[in-house]
């Protein structure tokens, strides 16, 4: 599907979203990452010793390679977008509202897990995430009744999981109380 003139900009189909800004952003991100890696590599003592290469060899190599990749990616974007790119699956625009709920669930879980314990924290994660996922499907997020049901289901999943892993499998998971049951 390559045009015969790779220098000319590829006409963008008005139905499909223009991916080029995002592609450019990733290319720039790669270059920035390369710079960060180079900065870090400069701080690693070279100490080559017997081997001729030291702990800073690979960091420099990866930094250079990443920089090169970033430059090549930016070049591709300017030539009309990434080559041979498959149209990504799913909708054209992202449902950020839905994602916000799911993110809230994950982050809330991460923040609270050691405070309120695994069971409650994961039940919270479940409730928020399932709300977000439901919104993404176009259904309503759920009224109070639905949310209560979600919390119950979340607890029904996280509680036996907690018991299974802490009681039978001796995995260390944080609990709200010291009893090991909650």
């Amino acid at each position, binding site marked *: 599907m390559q045009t015969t003139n790779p220098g000319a900009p590829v006409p963008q189909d008005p139905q499909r979203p223009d991916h080029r800004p995002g592609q450019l952003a990733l290319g720039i991100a790669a270059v920035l990452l390369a710079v960060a890696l180079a900065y870090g590599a400069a701080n690693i003592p070279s100490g080559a010793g017997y081997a001729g290469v030291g702990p800073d060899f690979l960091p420099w190599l990866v930094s250079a390679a*990443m920089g090169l990749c970033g430059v090549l990616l930016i070049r591709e974007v300017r030539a009309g977008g990434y*080559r041979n790119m498959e149209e990504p699956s799913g909708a054209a625009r992202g*449902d950020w509202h839905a994602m916000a709920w799911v993110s809230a669930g994950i982050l809330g879980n991460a923040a609270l897990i050691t405070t309120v314990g695994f069971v409650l924290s*994961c039940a919270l994660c479940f409730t928020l995430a399932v709300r977000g*996922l439901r919104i993404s499907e*176009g259904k309503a997020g759920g009224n109070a009744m639905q949310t209560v049901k979600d919390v119950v289901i979340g607890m029904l999943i996280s509680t036996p999981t907690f018991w299974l892993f802490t009681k039978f499998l001796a995995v260390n998971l944080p609990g709200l109380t010291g009893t090991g049951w909650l």
Partner: protein
Amino acid sequence: MLELWNNLMGGFATAGTPINLLWALAGCALGTAIGVLPGLGPAVTVAMLLPITGQVEPTASMIFFAGIYYGAMYGGSTTSILLNTPGETGTMVTALEGFKMAKSGRAGAALATSAIGSFVAGSIATVLVTLFAPFLAEFAVKLGPPEYFCLMLLAFTTVSAVLGQSSLRGMTALFLGLALGLVGMDQITGQVRYTGGVIEFIDGVEVVLVAVGLFAVTEALYNALYEGKSEASMNKMNRAHMTKTEWRRSWPAWLRGTVIGFPFGTIPAGGSEIPTFLSYATERKLADPEYKKEFGTTGAIEGVAGPEAANNAAVTATLVPLLTLGIPTSVTAAILLSALQNYGINAGPQLFQTSSALVWALIASLYIGNVMLLVLNLPMVGLWVKLLKIPKAPLYAGILIFATVGVYGMRQSSFDLFVMYGLALLGVALRRFDFPTAPVIVGLILGPLAEAQFRNAMSIGEGSWTVFFQRPMSATLLAVVALVLITPRVLAWHRRA
């Protein structure tokens, strides 16, 4: 030869006791379930179950863990095909063609070729293990750091150049993985790198964390962002069965896959990623022209049959160096090793002498396990598919809970959970812009190993790069790497001319 047979029969006698049969069944069933559910893998599962070694007798627990290890490979293909969410790196390649086949309505054939191919490969590989364990391990000892490094280089090139449409994006992903692998303490000098002053990073970025973040959690976020209105992303499951043509196309691929997969399992060069990619590339190259166009579009059955067989052969083969040398060649094998150590059993050449009953019982249970898994995955595949019928929203939300267990259970660090989220955001970007994620994981796992081998090789060569070219085996491997990189370019240039 007679002694071998007697030992094997003895093994069957032990493995065939009701209690051990139950453990095998439990392991296979749990493994299949773990494999089916995205986000949890056999390595994490076995690791989380290690405490049972305090209670359970060694033969039984090894049979159990081995069952999980295998079952996950069988189950993982089911998810790869139906949900495009590979839980195991070994089934990543299956997701390529398998999911496409499922989308075109041929999920049943994909599942069938996957299960039967796994059974064929697993059985053949088990026979090979029985016959050649000592011989193969001896060969593997001859490989030195230069050869190991070149093998890993080969893995890097195949994974970034073969997968996906663009080698550039594959390479970028690979270097990202290598960069992640650099975080932490350098193995050889103890130099701390790229921690940014964050204490938790001194131990490096945990593989399970990256795998769960980039696969399971990314899936949940991507679904929320883009796939909400997509029609059921789970494909229709008709009966798992294949037509005559599909059988005819599959069985050579199974055999080729077994031949490719088995040697790679025995060599410490990174487990099931390389052979599955190699098998995929081979099948793609060798396919009949009329089937070639199915690759990447409607899904070619050879692209499922070959890698699945390679996967199972490689997994079986990892037991060879594990049991004869005490060298684990995959993450799960490493955990199996610590299970043995928990019992005070030293895996190594003397294992066949000191714990021969255990070893032969384990080998015998592999045969039994393969049969169990074939039954669990073929006629009973509907049972596991029911797991996937759970509506998407609670399924992915529930997976987040298991992801939390896996990630938090590894290091008891809630910081890891935040990193997991960050990685998931990255995963969404990668997926949206068609960057393959497999090279990230391969770079992360193999990067530190490759670096260690490289620097050891350079020490052997006393700082001179010629060490890689002077040794015949590593020079050959380098030539293969060059071929893999150059051939597609030359072919394309030729076509254009």
